[in-house]
């Protein structure tokens, strides 16, 4: 006789578990999210276009994506440095610093927002030091970048750390045997190996930064056409009961974010092929 192979569903509970998952996901996420295209397309095309091409909308979108890109780039460098120091060096308080890296994930954004605003306000601890240098952070786009660097800081550190931990010492040894200096070995050997992790962290920080609201609005000053971010403009349109306009701006945000993340994924795939070749 043939031994009966175990039925693929030996473990019970498939129907219940998948049922709960799909029902909850549909009711809380998918159905409500479908409201954005629904509400946006209920608007006449020329009215929707008027919302998108409104200079205030264009500026808010450009500001949100521009500051998020800049902050993610700062975090790529800063995050790599922090991951390097945390993985490679032994120093007193290393575990404390490692735990502290996740502070932006745990600290509510509104708390971060008022704290950064207080720090960088013209009479704040840091604002007072920067003012004589002619640098104004609070109530300018620079303040938005500072807030987004804060909220996005952990992403790159946490994606690069495990890769550095796993980095094979032999690879570096080989480079050293071949006479490469440290900086050359870092650039030619280490950097290409951690690049995918840096880029992955960059993408996460970017996605987070584009939509960030709580930590930004206190330090930004929120002047239309100067320091008004796209999420705030959505909130303002909603307060005016202009649901259609809010949905159109949200749809534009989601579309641009999707295109950017798609581009980053293509870059990752291209990079993988290049390394394997």
């Amino acid at each position, binding site marked *: 006789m043939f031994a009966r192979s175990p039925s693929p569903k030996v473990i019970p509970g498939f129907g219940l578990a998948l049922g709960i998952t799909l029902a909850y996901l549909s009711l809380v996420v998918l159905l409500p999210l479908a409201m954005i295209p629904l509400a946006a397309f209920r608007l006449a095309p020329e009215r929707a276009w008027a919302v998108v091409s409104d200079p205030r909308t264009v500026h808010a979108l450009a500001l949100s994506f521009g500051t998020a890109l800049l902050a993610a780039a700062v975090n790529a460098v800063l995050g790599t440095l922090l991951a390097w120091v945390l993985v490679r060096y032994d120093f007193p308080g290393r575990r404390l610093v490692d735990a502290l890296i996740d502070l932006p994930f745990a600290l509510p954004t*509104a708390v971060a927002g008022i704290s950064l605003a207080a720090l960088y306000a013209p009479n704040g601890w840091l604002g007072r030091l920067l003012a004589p240098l002619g640098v104004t952070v609070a109530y300018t786009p620079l303040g938005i970048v500072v807030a987004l660097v804060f909220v996005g800081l952990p992403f790159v550190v946490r994606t690069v750390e495990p890769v550095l931990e796993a980095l094979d010492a032999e690879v570096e040894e080989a480079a050293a045997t071949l006479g490469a200096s440290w900086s050359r070995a870092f650039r030619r050997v280490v950097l290409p190996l951690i690049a995918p992790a840096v880029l992955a962290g960059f993408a996460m920080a970017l996605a987070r930064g584009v939509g960030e609201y709580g930590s930004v609005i206190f330090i930004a000053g929120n002047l239309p056409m100067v320091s008004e971010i796209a999420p705030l403009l959505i909130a303002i349109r909603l307060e005016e009961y202009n649901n259609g306009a809010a949905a159109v701006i949200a749809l534009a945000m989601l579309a641009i974010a999707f295109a950017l993340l798609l581009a980053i994924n293509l870059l990752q795939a291209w990079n993988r092929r290049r390394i394997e070749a």
Partner: protein
Amino acid sequence: MSLLSPRRAHAVAEAPAVRFLLLGLALAAVALFLLLPLGVVFAEAFARGWAAFAEGVADPDARAAIRLTLLVAAISVSVNLVFGVAAAWAVTKFDFPGKSVLVTLIDLPFSVSPVIAGLIYVLLFGAHGLIGPWLIAHGVEVIFAVPGIVLATMFVTLPFVARELIPTMEMLGRGDEEAARTLGASGWQIFFRVTLPNVKWAALYGVLLCNARAMGEFGAVSVVSGHLRGLTNTMPLHIEILYNEYNFVAAFAVASLLALMALVTLALKSGLEALGGK
């Protein structure tokens, strides 16, 4: 190990001067971007002494905000814990078409702006929304009321438990559960006696992060709350109102409670990581 020695031998070690420079830069960045913002919260909260701090925290509106925040966090964390367990069970114990799509969809709330998370519920349940007018006619208020706040918080915190449980349960495999089934255990017995003991720390880790986000959520809640003092103000919204009224001591006093919650979260998280060898 001597100060600043590499944690393990590396063939290509940077010069000591470079090492000091890199460490100095990293610590300066941590101090500037993480420690200073944290320190300011407590410094400002106690800028006028204990009495002013206590006054800010004991204010009836502040107390109502604290109660609402705890209520919203309790509901959304429990619901998302049940969802996370169900989703992880379905994804890791069975094979079915569309599984990877499902896993991607579970992470979706992380890539949506909190303001958009609030917006979608206004478009659905608001006075000018899809089913809002009908609900309001039947006496059900979702937007500018507690149910809307709970829904928006549930949305933004949905992935936390599931994304901790799925990799852990994937790694543990199905062998134990299949063996228990062969020995005649019921589904619930398998879950509580076999699976749960193996994943309890991962679940707790997810609950911890879920709770921190639930208590601190601002953007999504701000859009649906209507900011009714003592009624629909959570702690983050109360902080915003106090701050905009230039009542800085009270704003930072309430903020310091949330900062304390964040510090406790980080400490417990480190403890769990040490426990699980993460």
